[in-house]
């Protein structure tokens, strides 16, 4: 399932609370942008079809969606002596 929220923490204190970002708003904007760009992508794909790159251009859409939908569960935590970084897709 596509992640709805992202937990982000960049702090010096390991016990500090992070931000809960509503990434679904980003996805809405991104999907709207993808829909707007779709006719241009289709034209570019048709123009470059003979060179073989058109097929790959068309594939970017499903591949991008597939990556976004599987981001859920990604967890990156880095504890450094000076700073702690946490990125988690929920």
């Amino acid at each position, binding site marked *: 399932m596509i992640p709805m929220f992202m937990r982000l923490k960049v702090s010096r204190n390991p016990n500090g609370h992070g931000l809960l970002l509503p990434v679904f708003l980003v996805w809405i904007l991104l999907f709207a942008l993808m829909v707007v760009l779709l006719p241009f992508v289709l034209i570019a794909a048709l123009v470059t079809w003979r060179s073989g790159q058109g097929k790959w251009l068309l594939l970017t859409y499903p*591949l991008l969606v597939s990556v976004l939908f599987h981001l859920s569960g990604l967890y990156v935590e*880095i*504890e450094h*002596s000076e700073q702690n970084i946490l990125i988690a897709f929920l």
Partner: protein
Amino acid sequence: MNEERKKILEMLQQGKITVEEAEKLLAALLSPEESKSEAQKSTCKYLRVVVEPGPQSEDRDRVNIRVPMKLIRAGLKWAAFVPKHAHSSINKALHEKGIEMDFAQITSEDIEELVSQLDDLTVEVEGKEKVRICCE
């Protein structure tokens, strides 16, 4: 239960073959479709990479990364976008690292097989830092 399967289990019971041999024989009996579906029944959901400071390390840096296997599969599909003219550079870089492999020959099936085999992967390195890579 079919005849071959029964025979293998009888041989195991009689001690003619070991458990590992029986396992191999039973796996060989599966059709390619069956073995493929068996491979897809992977229990591994995440790939975990943990880097912790070792006992003699002065650094207190820690890294804890959990990557969903589905994301790895989806990300690897982007490998198809590597332009053909870059293949020779990749092959050259691999050769310099002592890996004799033709990048152009890697198919999506190979990648899928590689990812499905990650189930059994556990890497533990203990040096200045403790590194653990495993599936969970």
